[in-house]
């Protein structure tokens, strides 16, 4: 297939994942803000915006943090070029670019979701509507992935899309963890103490892992358990270990189809060595933040190498 089309597929699925992750982050923030007093709710919204990586931009256009401004900023504010409406527009644009390499089912799932969301986000989102918007975004993701799994050939197009999904998801989980770690555990002495279980609960909700975590850990919430779950537990589909194994499998499939490995497979192996057999104690020893920074850098390097190896750009 064309390098440009592969690039389109890769980014179509990165943006889809990003939109979905942003919606989950927002959803967790909404829930958190509801259960807090006004003062703390402001802090929550600041934290949501910070985690989304848009704090400087938000503060340059807003004087204070409140729910209405925050979710509109995240969802549709033109001042934020990375709002969800734009992300979904990018999903659709990339789907159009890659139109000849996706099935009609996938295209229609993207197009109808986009029509619905674009309509919903064409006006400011009220308190009453924000929940609907968030669930529409999640449903859009589910629909596209469902159509994709059910109707696509397992050819290189499939693997480029999958690898895009897991590059983005790994990046997102790592960033959420890093942001929260930094905010909530400023010094090592906090590690292990049961700090604010509400905050950690929010982290788990942001990655759709609250239920799974509770089920696996019988309700015991602590930093160590959560890190182990989000980084190392390869049963959880948003953990770093899981994302890595999906990346690895899809890149291996691409190498098989092209009859040769590229730089991305090499980087993948390096990255694997770094995480295999790692224990949560070792992560805390080297510092969770340092570990995550290194992880994200490797993730970005793999993404860049894929683009290079498969001639995404002229």
């Amino acid at each position, binding site marked *: 297939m064309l390098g440009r089309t592969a690039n389109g597929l890769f980014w179509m699925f990165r943006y889809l994942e990003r939109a979905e992750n942003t919606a989950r982050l927002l959803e967790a923030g909404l829930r958190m803000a509801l259960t807090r007093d006004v003062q703390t709710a402001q802090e929550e919204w600041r934290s949501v915006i910070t985690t989304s990586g848009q704090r400087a931009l938000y503060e340059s256009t807003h004087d204070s943090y409140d729910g209405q401004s925050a979710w509109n900023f995240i969802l549709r504010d033109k001042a934020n070029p990375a709002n969800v409406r734009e992300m979904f527009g990018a999903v659709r644009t990339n789907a159009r670019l890659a*139109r000849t390499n996706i099935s009609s089912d996938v295209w229609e799932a993207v197009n109808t979701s986009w*029509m619905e969301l674009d309509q919903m986000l064409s006006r400011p989102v009220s308190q009453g509507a924000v929940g609907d918007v968030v669930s529409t975004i999640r449903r859009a993701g589910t629909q596209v992935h469902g159509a994709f799994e059910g109707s696509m050939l397992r050819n290189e197009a499939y693997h480029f899309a999958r690898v895009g999904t897991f590059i983005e998801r790994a990046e997102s989980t790592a960033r959420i963890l890093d942001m929260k770690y930094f905010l909530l555990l400023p010094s090592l002495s906090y590690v292990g103490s049961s700090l604010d279980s509400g905050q950690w609960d929010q982290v788990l909700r942001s990655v759709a892992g609250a239920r799974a975590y509770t089920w696996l850990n019988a309700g015991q919430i602590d930093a160590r358990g959560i890190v182990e779950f989000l980084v190392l537990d390869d049963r959880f589909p948003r953990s770093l270990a899981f994302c890595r194994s999906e990346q690895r499998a899809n890149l291996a499939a691409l190498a098989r189809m092209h009859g040769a490995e590229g730089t991305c497979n090499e980087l993948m192996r390096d990255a694997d060595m770094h995480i295999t057999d790692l224990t949560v104690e070792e992560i805390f020893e080297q510092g969770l933040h340092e570990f995550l920074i290194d992880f994200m850098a490797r993730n970005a390097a793999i993404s860049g190498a894929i683009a290079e190896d498969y*001639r995404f750009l002229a």
Partner: protein
Amino acid sequence: MVGTSDKFDEMFDGQGATRPAYTDYCAWYDEQDNKWLQRKNADADDSFRKTGITFNVYGEDEAEERLIPFDMVPRVITAPEWRKLTRGIEQRVRALNSFLYDLYHRQEIIRAGRVPERLFRQNEAWLANMVGFTPPGGIYTHIVGIDLVRTGPNEWFVLEDNARTPSGVSYMLENRETMMGMFPDLFSQVPVEAVSDYPRRLARSLAACAPPAFAESGRKKPNVAVLTPGIYNSAYYEHAFLADQMGAELVEGSDLRVVNGLVQMRTTSGFKPLDVVYRRVDDDFIDPLTFDPSSMLGVPGIMDVYRSGGITIANAPGTGICDDKAIYSFMPEIVEFYTGEKPLLPNVETWRCADDDSLAYVLDNLDELVVKEVHGSGGYGMLIGPTASKKEIKEFRKKLEANPENYIAQPTLSLSTCPIFTKKGLAPRHVDLRPYVLVSPSGIDITPGGLTRVALKEGSLVVNSSQGGGTKDTWVLKD
């Protein structure tokens, strides 16, 4: 159902009786519940939006995607009528190809004094680079759209030849899909020729035009691609649709490069030769080395590869000259010159304003004529005398006098009507027809059907989608 006015209506005769072509359809229609039809009509737009069959319009603010309105009453042509039309179209397309070959070679038709030399010398679509070169298989117009209008039971005329890049075929296909989705029972009651294999026919026709380099390569199947200007082009949907349906690549200029004397596509596993390119990019932009140097849409060096037999470009550069309305006015002579036969499908009577006598006549009768720019298209830059205001006529007169050779004039034809579905029931509207013709060394292939454009405004004669026109599914009945 109601009868219609003095115009030739394709569904009802003057007494309000259903014409044979529509007997089966009307029998079905009369049995449907009107409320249900209304609901179906409202659903049609939704279905087009979901599939994304839109065209892009660029306004001042941002890009907008619009739908071409779809009318759910089919336009029906009987098998004998269609057979007659196809014979005329085939003859015309054959003549067009011979004409292009001649024009870029010995120019016998000019030597014979049948067509004046100035016609193409002054024509921007004329490409000096094509002189003396024969495209693979001798085919210039691989894909042609012949615009037809009807004025009576057996009166069909050619209104325009689209030999450059006829668009709209995706509407022919999607209109049918939509109709079959909306009214499946209708198709079990009326025997209609299928159009859905057009993409396969197109793929086959293009593959049959593979260049000499492909034959020498030893590869089994030629690589075919659709070259699009990109997702912001108004017809991008169609480009993607056709590539998808043909199983061909959809490429942009930036995906292609000349490597080892061949045009190659940048794929995920390196450069891969391209044999046939169905380009939806204008001549001017196709090769920045040969034509417009600022073009980002084309492929530097593709013309050299073309001339050395390394690639087939469909349609061939320089075919656009046949879209010129001054050339059109000579089509009866052109058909006769190359086929030795009288044209089976007549032209609409045309006055060339470049001739003094004609100009005088046109100026005297502006309020009755349709005046068109020779290079214009899309319904722009034309005057429709009978509906124009005095002021518009006055302004047009000035333009015409200043530059007469830029115009031709035709009588205002009483185009046939076909009913559309409205809230108040069926109402007649003017229609035209664009059948799609494929040309390859293995022959001329016309898909039974085409694109029927309809002027949705009552009384309007302008069917262009840019001017409030819509489309209909076009049925050719089986024998």
